[in-house]
């Protein structure tokens, strides 16, 4: 995140440089304030596309979109939200250290910690940096320079035994520990409970980022849990392997975080979700280290203890090392896309694909609004010929095939494997699509669709500069309710916005992102222009709350992979029943009787 250098060189050099600056930031006083970097970066990205036509580019080279001009974005923003360039909401430029409350340090703990040699810091910026995830209210507060309860200290253990020492000391001196991985939580899980009176230590796992071994016979790798997703993939790629676990947050999120929240990756159809990938987990708890005694691929030894760890959201201990499955890097990858006359047909097609169990590595269905958004992100085309071709395609789809541009929707596909099989697979999927009126719409559209996922998080920050706030949330739902939940939740969002006095029509859109045998994962995006509202975040929260109620009322789950954190705690009892809550509580009571891992998530 902190890399602003835009030098040339290979991607690997770039990545290395990036890591270096992050590490540097952890170890010394950071060169610039991290929060400021965050905000400044949004602005840097945001203002440029608008200021002059020459500079309407996405900086840096991390994405395929980097450096390209996006001519449609401005119009889309204006038409969708009523946002204009004249109205800007400036972020607080830099962190004001005096706004950060002074740390409450447990002297005895600090003394003993010093003797272990584990690096730590009580610096304001380090602490603020680890006091938040990426929920809208958290980012909004940061932009406004509002800072609540933050950790009192940050520690950077370097390995499993460092963590053991820290947890022992924490128990001994009764301080509160909050594990910190990539900081990409969207469930308020990293928020420090304001009622916590003990010293809060943020345990940053970022230094535990090595691959300890690779076992090519069993296709497993033993990895320290602090490694960031993208780094893990890059490092494994060097040996010709990958994990295939690619959550949208993989640029920043960590392996430990994935395990702690029951993460799901884009390509789960081939590689599985985190619970399918994990072979062994090592977690340090106040009661000691929990781990299994063997690497058997499946066991019948009572309830799987891994399932207490996965989804524990930092309430039971720190995940330090994970043995997970690896796969050879696929020899061939191909994007694709299909246009459907309407969302109903699209969902029917996905359902059929799931029924025949022939889902490609990834298959996603965007609704019409999102299709238009993706369209707005289309970079300026390089030649008259391409733009002519685009026009022709549009003509073919809307006029010749009779698709209504305000109803059609698009599915994006990603195939992986050996070339022959991919092509065969591709044909199978396109054949099914054709039965539901789907038209193949090219690789380009598919690829852009996936990029959208990454871009959208940045666009939110850009939007905030123009009074637009938004967020995404997800759920999982049985197949027969997919259409209903999509329609009702979207309608509820629009309804609630109107109710709460939002002046402009909101963006309310959804995407079916994963298919399962018995259902699908649905993502909702929701954003609105908050000009004219005195407390936009409160309005936002009310709408999101209503949307979640609507999801639950329509048979959706509380969360598919974001987790519960503190944001969705209120529905937990309803979701798992009182007995279920009691079971979870009794585990917590045994493992961590003094609530050392006091993030108060989940329960």
């Amino acid at each position, binding site marked *: 995140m902190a890399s602003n250098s835009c030098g040339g060189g290979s991607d690997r050099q770039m990545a290395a440089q990036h890591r270096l600056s992050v590490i540097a930031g952890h170890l010394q006083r950071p060169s610039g304030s991290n929060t400021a970097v965050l905000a400044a970066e949004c602005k840097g990205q945001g203002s440029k596309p608008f200021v002059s036509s020459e500079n309407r580019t996405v900086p840096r080279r991390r994405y395929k979109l980097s450096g390209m001009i996006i001519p449609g974005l401005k119009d889309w923003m204006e038409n969708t939200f009523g946002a204009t360039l004249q109205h800007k909401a400036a972020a607080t430029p830099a962190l004001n250290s005096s706004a950060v409350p002074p740390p409450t340090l447990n002297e005895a703990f600090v003394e003993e910690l010093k003797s272990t040699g584990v690096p730590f810091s009580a610096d304001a910026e380090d602490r603020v940096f680890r006091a938040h995830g990426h929920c809208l209210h958290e980012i909004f507060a940061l932009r406004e320079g509002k800072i609540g309860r933050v950790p009192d200290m940050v520690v950077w253990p370097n390995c499993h035994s460092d963590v053991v020492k820290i947890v022992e000391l924490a128990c001994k001196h009764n301080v509160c520990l909050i594990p910190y991985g990539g900081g990409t939580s969207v469930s308020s899980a990293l928020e420090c409970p304001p009622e916590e009176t003990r010293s809060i230590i943020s345990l940053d796992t970022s230094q535990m980022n090595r691959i300890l071994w690779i076992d090519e016979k069993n296709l497993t790798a033993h990895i320290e849990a602090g490694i960031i997703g993208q780094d893990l993939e890059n490092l494994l790629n060097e040996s010709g392997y990958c994990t295939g676990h690619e959550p949208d947050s993989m640029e920043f999120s960590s392996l430990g975080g994935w395990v702690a929240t029951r993460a799901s990756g884009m390509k789960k159809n081939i590689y599985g979700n985190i619970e399918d990938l994990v072979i062994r987990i090592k977690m340090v708890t106040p009661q000691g280290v929990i781990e299994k005694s063997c690497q058997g691929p499946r066991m019948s030894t009572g309830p799987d203890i891994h399932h207490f760890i996965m989804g524990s959201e930092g309430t039971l201990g720190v995940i330090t090392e994970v043995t997970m499955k690896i796969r050879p890097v696929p020899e061939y990858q191909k994007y694709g896309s299909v246009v459907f006359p309407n969302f109903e047909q699209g969902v029917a097609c996905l359902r059929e694909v799931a029924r025949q169990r022939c889902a490609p590595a990834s298959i996603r269905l965007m609704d019409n609004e999102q299709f238009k958004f993706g369209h707005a992100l289309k970079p300026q085309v390089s030649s008259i010929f391409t733009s002519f071709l685009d026009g022709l395609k549009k003509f073919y789809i809307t006029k010749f095939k009779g698709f209504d541009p305000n109803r059609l929707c698009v599915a994006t596909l990603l195939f992986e494997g050996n070339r022959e099989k991919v092509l065969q697979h591709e044909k199978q999927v396109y054949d099914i699509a054709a039965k539901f009126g789907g038209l193949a719409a090219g690789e380009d559209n598919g690829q852009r669709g996936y990029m959208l996922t990454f871009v959208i998080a940045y666009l939110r920050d850009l939007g905030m500069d123009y009074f637009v706030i938004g967020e995404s949330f997800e759920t999982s739902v*049985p197949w*027969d*309710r997919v259409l*209903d*939940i999509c*329609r*009702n939740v979207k*309608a*509820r969002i629009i*309804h609630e916005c109107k109710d709460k006095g939002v002046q402009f029509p909101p963006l309310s859109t959804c995407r079916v992102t994963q298919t399962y045998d018995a259902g699908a994962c649905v993502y909702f995006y929701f954003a609105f222009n908050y000009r004219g509202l005195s407390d936009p975040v409160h309005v936002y929260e009310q709408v999101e709350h209503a949307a979640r109620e609507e999801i*639950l*009322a*329509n*048979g959706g789950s509380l969360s598919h992979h974001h987790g519960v954190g503190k944001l969705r705690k209120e529905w937990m009892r309803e979701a798992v029943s009182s007995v279920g809550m009691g079971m979870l509580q009794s585990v917590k009571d045994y493992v961590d009787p003094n609530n050392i891992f006091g993030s108060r998530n989940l329960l």
Partner: protein
Amino acid sequence: MASKVVYSPRDPMLKKRDDFEDVLEERRRSGDLRYALRCYSPVLYKGPTTSKASELKTMVLQSDQLHYVVNQVSRESGVPLDDVQAEASVILEEMAHRLQLSTVRFFAFTLSKVFKAIFRSICVNEEGVQRLQQVVQEHPVVLLPSHRSYMDFLLMSYLMYTYDLPLPAIAAGMDFMGMKVVGEMLRMSGAFFIRRSFGGDKLYWAVFSEYVKTILRNGFAPLEFFLEGTRSRTSKSLTPKLGLLNIAMDPFLKGEVFDVSLVPVSISYERVLEETLYARELLGVPKPKESTSGLFKARRVLSEDYGSIHVYFGPPVSVRSLAEGRVNRSQFSLTPRHIPRRPSEDVHSFVNDAAYRLVRAQEENMVLKPWVLLASLLLQNQGAGQNRGVPLDELIQQAVWLRDLCRQFGAFLHWPDQIPSSEVVSSSLSLHGGLVRVSEDRVYLALEQEPHCSLTAEEELLSQAVVVLSCASYRNQVLHVFLRPALLAAAIHTASSSQKQEVYSSFLFLRNMFSNEFILCPGAAVQDFEEACYLLTKVGALHINQHEVLTAERGHRTLAFLTSILDPFLQGYQMVCSFLCEDATQALTERRFVPAVRAFIIKHLLKGRLRYPEVLSSDLQRNALAALLRLGAVQKVQGGEESGTLKVNRVMLNSLEDTLGGRLSTQKALRAHL
């Protein structure tokens, strides 16, 4: 008394209602043919709509819901699947409507002619129409008109056509199918037909409910049905039937649509076409079977004046907002939605409450004509012999008093203030010339027959009762305004002391007793009590403090009026009780109950032991029986040789009768019930 729920008194005088416009005015100015042939382009539901009736049928026949039941029926009965499927499509064929614009245009033409001939005006609140136009685009709509006349649904469709609103699919009773040509024409103007009873027929229920739900889900057309289930012969709103409402709410509860808008529509007739027909029916002359020739005989109505009609489209009620916090919708996600399930307890009580609320909304927006006040007054002051009836000037003075009371109670009264009261009264009297006579400046009910034939005493009584019941049906229109204060007035009258607690328990008893007779929302006893207290304190009839309910000096007139408006019902219920105690034989069944109790009452009336011929109303008798069954004073024997006979609990009936008559305190009576 659990008066934690505080009734928040919103001043009923301030109740905002829209203004009316007369649709016939335009019709009188331009040609009917042109109107019938004009371009009709209704606003449509924004969602995906199917417009063809045939597509609708295919959707129903191919639905998972129907498939499931067809399979089930085939498995259980051993009938081959195809046969059951064929049976289902026969049922659907018999049920489904076939909307044709040409038929609608035909109706538009003829109805314009008829309406202009018999009605002075048809007044509609156009703001309500505009609201409807809005909501039709947003959500599936259910129109819920009140049901007082056959005219109702023709009128509704006529108005929808006039205002460029989509023509509704109307749930009609199968009895119309008997009228061959008319039945088919109704079908082609949007009516679909349901059998009156199909209790255990799973297949019929499945086809029917799926048909209705498909109409709603696909925004095919607004659905229209009568919450009261049948025409009210008494002009009192009937206890709502829940079947269709349950079905109509289902798509929302199961998440298949975002919301459903319920639009209560109040249709009030200054003079009901079926006025004396209803009275005869209530007195035991069986209802004539609907037949086309019968309809032509009705032609003489064309020469009469039926005054004006007021149609009030109430504000749409969102099912979503009704269900908010009441129903946990996630319960519908735990089993496949196409498997039919009985509604759970909470859903049932939710639908029931909603139904009552909607009927109340219909009642409140019914326009009341001056005549209903006159009818109430005349029924209370019949006098006898030389002093029969009321002097005209006294009647005018009383009517003005009652008008003001009504207004203070928030009634929707159309009393033209710009015209002198005497003229208002005399024009009302002349419109209802069949029911009242004015001679020597006295006004009285037209009870005497021409002396050309000699009638038995019983026949004479019955013919008088026809007039009284007709009049009572007009008085009944205003009952909902006075009901709660009247229950309180009666409670004060029967309570042994003025202790608030005592009065409340007396109120509670009466409210409970009459909850089959009047629309009293379940579970709203405290609220009703508070409302009654508030209204009567407001008009200065009562002083109410922490512990006592005291009659104010100038409250006697109001309280006397209110008690006597309820008196026929009190007497009637006592009559039914004493019949069951004294006269009921062993083999009394529910079917034979009405004739038997009627004979008993006629006897009492002839002996002069009972003043009110309106107790002869079979509606009242049935309601009383239903209440007694509910309270357990009478039980229906299930099974065995005596199946269907009524078993009477004499002790309890006696105590109920005494309590109704004020001879026993409610406290004791309540205890006796437990």
